[in-house]
């Protein structure tokens, strides 16, 4: 592993037995796991290149237990790493050798479905898809749909502000969460929001969402549910250059159409997928767009007509529209299987997650191809075309010495490139440990210091998920100092009245 984690605290490790006993008193029965064999499944998350056994695993079942564990750890200076289903692709749930891994899997019930207010109140260990399953009998669904939705939990979605293929139209997690119960590192339980909209004070809900488990442990989530659209149809549009495909996306949005989903794949991704799924994708194109329209039949048919006209203007070489639900799902089956399909043609792959201004797509793809040659590693691109979120999949073999390091260096170059063209390091997977050391490519020291001051407001001892997101850990006292430039301020220049 190339990322340096905080040095384990020898004092804490020496007290391990005492800490485990204390935790057993808070979470009785099988809720505390301390043997190496049983802790092994928790040693990594979706970013499997990074592994670390935790000091102890705790699986609380109630808010009071979470509060008890955190209060104990706060009092005894023990670090805590929260974990949902462990599907993070950025190492957000990577354990610490001297820390408690706090698994939230037992918080798995749906507490309330309130159709009249169009919300569901769920525990954080409920999977994303289970929310939709719980409300679909009345035609409702939960909009954010990360591709791991069968496994990933709502708590993890809140931590990462997860997106999905439909988030251009329906928003990310942050736009679909109305309330939280959470436990601060001190053990204090607070409630933010509820079934109503917006904060009456500071929007702490907006800050906690996407905070990657660094600010608190969420124990209940109130999410917005929506009525499903009457119908959906998908279009499969092929282009002989990625420039043409990118221009077509811009034209569609420029025409005032926000599709429910708009995905792009490049030639290597198309071929990998087609061999795996046989979705009927054209193999003689450089870029393939899947555009999905959802709404009433009259709207969908109308917009498909307009998009077909646009694609003709954009030099599309193929354009097919699904004529049945089976065909629509087949169009998507390829895209949804893109990661496993790439997994078939390479022993390992490394999934990146930058976002770029869409107009920069040709430049970024060209530069990515050059980097691919430089590093001697193949790359396949899948792309949330509507919002500019790029997922280059770098193909490597971890059994070949040096290939993982090369893949990581290649990935870092791609992310720096995303920032260079006006984009960002991560669109939906989070910073975690993976992109932690790249944060200075996007943020100044002052930017990062201000973010860490906010962290201090929630976690004064820096015990919650340290080593993630921030490349350099500062003590809160040091960050809190105010530097007043007395007497050196050139303020008299400013017009005043």
């Amino acid at each position, binding site marked *: 592993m190339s990322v340096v984690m905080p040095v384990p605290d020898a004092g804490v490790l020496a007290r391990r037995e005492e800490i485990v006993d204390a935790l057993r008193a808070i979470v009785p029965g099988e809720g505390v796991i301390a043997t190496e064999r049983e802790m092994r499944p928790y040693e990594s998350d979706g970013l499997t290149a990074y592994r670390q056994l935790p000091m102890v695993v705790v699986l609380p079942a109630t808010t009071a237990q979470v509060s008890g564990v955190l209060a104990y750890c706060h009092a005894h200076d023990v670090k805590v790493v929260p974990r949902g289903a462990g599907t993070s692709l950025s190492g957000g749930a990577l354990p610490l050798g001297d820390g408690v891994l706090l698994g939230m899997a037992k918080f798995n019930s749906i507490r309330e479905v309130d159709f009249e207010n169009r919300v569901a109140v769920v525990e954080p260990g409920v999977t994303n898809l289970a929310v939709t399953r719980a409300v679909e009998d009345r035609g409702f669904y939960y909009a954010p749909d990360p591709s791991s939705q069968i496994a990933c939990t709502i708590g993890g979605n809140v931590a990462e502000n997860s997106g999905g293929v439909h988030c251009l139209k329906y928003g990310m997690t942050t736009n679909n969460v109305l309330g939280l119960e959470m436990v601060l590192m001190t053990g204090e339980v607070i409630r933010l929001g509820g079934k109503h909209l917006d*904060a009456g*004070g500071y929007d702490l809900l907006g800050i906690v969402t996407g*905070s990657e488990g660094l600010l608190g442990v969420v124990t209940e989530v109130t999410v917005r549910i929506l009525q499903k659209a009457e119908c959906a149809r998908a279009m499969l549009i092929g282009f002989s250059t990625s420039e043409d495909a990118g221009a077509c996306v811009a034209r569609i949005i420029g025409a005032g159409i926000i599709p429910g989903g708009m995905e792009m794949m490049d030639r290597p991704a198309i071929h990998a997928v087609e061999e795996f799924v046989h979705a009927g994708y054209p193999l003689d194109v450089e870029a393939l767009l899947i555009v999905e329209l959802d709404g009433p039949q*009259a709207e969908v048919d*109308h917009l498909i007509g307009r998009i077909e006209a646009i694609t003709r203007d954009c030099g599309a070489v193929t354009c097919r529209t699904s004529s049945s639900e089976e065909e629509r799902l087949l169009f998507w089956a390829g895209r949804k299987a893109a990661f496993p399909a790439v997994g078939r043609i390479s022993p390992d792959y490394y999934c990146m997650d930058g976002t770029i201004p869409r107009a920069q797509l040709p430049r970024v793809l060209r530069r990515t191809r050059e980097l691919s040659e430089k590093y001697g590693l193949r790359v396949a691109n899948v792309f949330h075309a509507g919002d500019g979120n790029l997922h280059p999949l770098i193909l490597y073999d971890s059994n070949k010495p040096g290939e993982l390091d090369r893949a990581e260096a290649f990935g870092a170059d791609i992310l720096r490139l995303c920032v260079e063209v006006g984009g960002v390091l*991560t*669109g939906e997977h989070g910073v975690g440990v993976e992109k932690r050391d790249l944060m200075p490519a996007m943020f100044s020291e002052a930017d990062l210091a*201000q973010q860490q001051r906010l962290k201090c407001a929630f976690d004064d001892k820096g015990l919650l998920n340290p080593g993630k997101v921030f490349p350099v850990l500062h003590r809160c006292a040091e960050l809190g100092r105010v530097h007043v*430039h007395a007497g050196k*301020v050139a303020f008299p220049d400013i017009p005043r009245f």
Partner: protein
Amino acid sequence: MADALRPRDAKDVEGAVQWALAHRKSLEIVGHGTKRSLGRPAQVDATLDLAGLAGVTLYEPEELVLSAGAGTPLSEIEARLDAAGQQLAFEPMDFGPLLGAPARQATIGGVLAANLSGPRRIKAGAARDHFLGVAAVSGRGEVFKAGGRVVKNVTGYDLCKLLAGSWGTLAAMTDVTIKTLPRPETEATVIVVGLDAARAMQAMAAAMGSSCDVSGAAHVDADVAARVGDDVAVGRDVTVLRIEGVAPSVAHRTDALMNVLRPFGALNTLGEAQSRALWEAIRDVVPFAAGGPAGKRIVWRLSVAPTKGAAAAQLIAQRADAEFLYDWAGGLVWAALAPTDDVGAAAVHGAISSCGGHATLIRAPAALRASVAAFEAHTGGLAALTRRVKDAFDPRGVLGPGRMWAGV
């Protein structure tokens, strides 16, 4: 009269806050000052007037982003968007009519700092949901930025969310980037006539729970309806629901919505022009405008669970002479109360403690606004956390001390 500091650029703003820190002065951040009379009056030594930080610096309609100085007039931004067939989907309300300030004078910085929205909040979100990036000067006198200029981004804490609705008490925003979206091609409104508030909540819930994709749901009684506009002044209580989109879809969904609502009462529809005028009046709470018949009333804004709207209003009406306008399918209650010494705070806070949600004091005499909880009052851990968040940005209390809460 406090000093007014008028920075010309972000560097000047940094200098201004540094000056205030060094001289232990406090600053009230203002754009065009249209919302200064809302909430608690700040006790400050000088105003920091950001109107000079004006101008759109980037607008790429096909990327759905616009960047501008915080002092840029909203009207200028909306004109740019309109010319490109786009809009701010969160439909920011104009507080001008309600507060007796000139109409359409807000700046984008003020819109974001107050986390404004409008009737479309229930479908498209508030300012917070469209605020992509920011450069600002903290109360520590330090420049920082957060977010970016792309529509999908989870890099670092989402400080834009925190600054949205912080009323200038955490940082002075200098440059902002917002998400823009296509303007709907057309719109229509379905009117249900003669429902009382409780029944109207049910009708709106049925509409919102349908697949008609309703983008506005409001209710007013007959007296208030008469002040919304001639098109709905039918002498009866009215419940109005908006449908927006491409023409064939609006026609189809209007029919579908009427089928959903037929069991509730007599129906009527408004075409595009009338619908547009109606929702602008609802957005700006025109029935309670300072210059109108309710102009002397105290105005509170309550955000509650949609099904609690009527109940909250009923609790207030038991203790005060009040009129109501319900938006957000019942989740937003504008309450106009006859003036009393406590500005109706006991009635409003009583309703909130029973129904949940929160209330903000929007309009009241300045002398009384400092004496009640104008923003949501926190207790215990949340109050302490709020205090620590304020300290993380503004430990010396330079920016708008007391603007939201006494002592914060």
